[in-house]
């Protein structure tokens, strides 16, 4: 059997993370291995351009357009590609639909895999040990931390993102939003409703 011992170089660096990253960055700059403009562009992308609004638009469209919904569920990668919503950490996506009898919940127990192009970067709790440990064993207790109560008639299906498939929950459309147009529905779709830790709700301020 082969061995592969990755040495712990990080221990030679300052332990304070701020000082640690500064020390690393100065080495990379000295070697000319990073381009600050590229770093700025990456941050701008994930801080300002990519976020849960992308997912919300898809959900609102699926609620109002049957043909689109069928395509989204059955031909997901092509649909997302056509909408320019694929890409890093969303190369292979599966959309799972909540129904009267099934509620879906997404987790990554081994790290923190999350559909970046559709939801942006994950919230802190998604990356926490508590969520990663508990979501598969006691999803109902986890949901109660989010004030989400499910009727016992609903089965919970927890999806553990162990491979490069990224999951998005298609939540049920709330009865109070029936009849609204696609663009009005977008603001009902919360980030958590697309992870399975929440439900869509009326936009605040209404």
């Amino acid at each position, binding site marked *: *059997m*082969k*061995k592969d011992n*990755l*040495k*712990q*170089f*990080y221990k*030679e660096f300052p332990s304070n*993370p701020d000082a640690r*990253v*500064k020390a*690393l*960055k100065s080495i*990379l700059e000295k*070697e*000319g*291995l*990073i*381009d600050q403009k590229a*770093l*700025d*562009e*990456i*941050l701008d*992308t*994930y*801080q300002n351009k990519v976020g849960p609004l992308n997912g919300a638009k898809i959900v609102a469209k699926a609620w109002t357009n049957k043909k689109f919904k069928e395509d989204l569920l059955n031909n997901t990668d092509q649909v997302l590609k056509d909408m320019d919503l694929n*890409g*890093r950490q*969303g*190369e*292979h996506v*599966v959309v799972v639909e909540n129904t009267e009898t099934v509620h879906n919940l997404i987790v990554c*127990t*081994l790290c923190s895999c999350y559909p970046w192009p559709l939801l942006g*970067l994950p*919230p*802190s*709790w998604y*990356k926490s*040990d*508590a969520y990663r*440990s*508990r979501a*598969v*064993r006691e*999803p*109902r207790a986890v949901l109660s*931390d*989010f004030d989400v109560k499910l009727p016992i008639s609903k*089965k*919970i*299906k*927890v999806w*553990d993102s*162990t*491979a*490069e*498939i990224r999951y998005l929950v298609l939540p049920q459309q709330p009865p109070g939003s029936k009849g609204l147009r696609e663009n009005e529905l977008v603001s009902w779709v919360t980030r958590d409703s697309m992870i399975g830790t929440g439900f869509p709700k009326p936009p605040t301020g209404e």
Partner: protein
Amino acid sequence: MSKAHDMGGRLDSRRIDIKSSNVKFKADWEKEVFAITLALGFSSLWNLDRSRYARESLEPKDYLQFGYFEKWLAGLINLLGENGIIKDGQEKGGNFKKSSFRILEAKNVKKLLNMGGPTKRESTTEKKFNLGETVSVRANNSNTKVEKGHTRLPDYVKGRTGKVIAYHGNHVFPDTNAHFLGENPEALYSVEFKSQDLWDKCEYFEDTVVVDLWESYIEKFK
């Protein structure tokens, strides 16, 4: 005893802290770590599986104490170390060949992020399992090629029985790719387990857990 990062089903009495759930970065250094890690991910010196392995291989005590981006930072330093880019300290890495390092330029960021790193490959062999088929997960979830190597087979499903509910085509096999032993694409399936088959006490008998598993992680149910 599962490895530190393999957390699924571990007993944990902490509540989920949903406060400040919209904060992407808690400090500027986290932004730096995020951007540098992504940029160097395009350097061609390693792959996504290797970077996961680097994070998982931190000292278990550190893995459990570090925040999310501290793990990224330490993992990244180890990857740079093994490539000879970091030469400080007592640990000496390999010899750095700058010519093989691809520097990410600003003009390529959008294109490369949109491209991502698809892991699906052409299928050259016939898949072994059918939709609806009952399968058993290997009893041992250790990497079979590399001692204490990387795997994406979580501890909590080893030896358990479930049903194949989806087939995703052939995907790069992390257990070899993380150690530069080739992509060796394998059929990838979603396998659904009844919660009551996974846990002593389950909340509701109809609840299930679905795990994505490569073909060599599972066996025919006997």
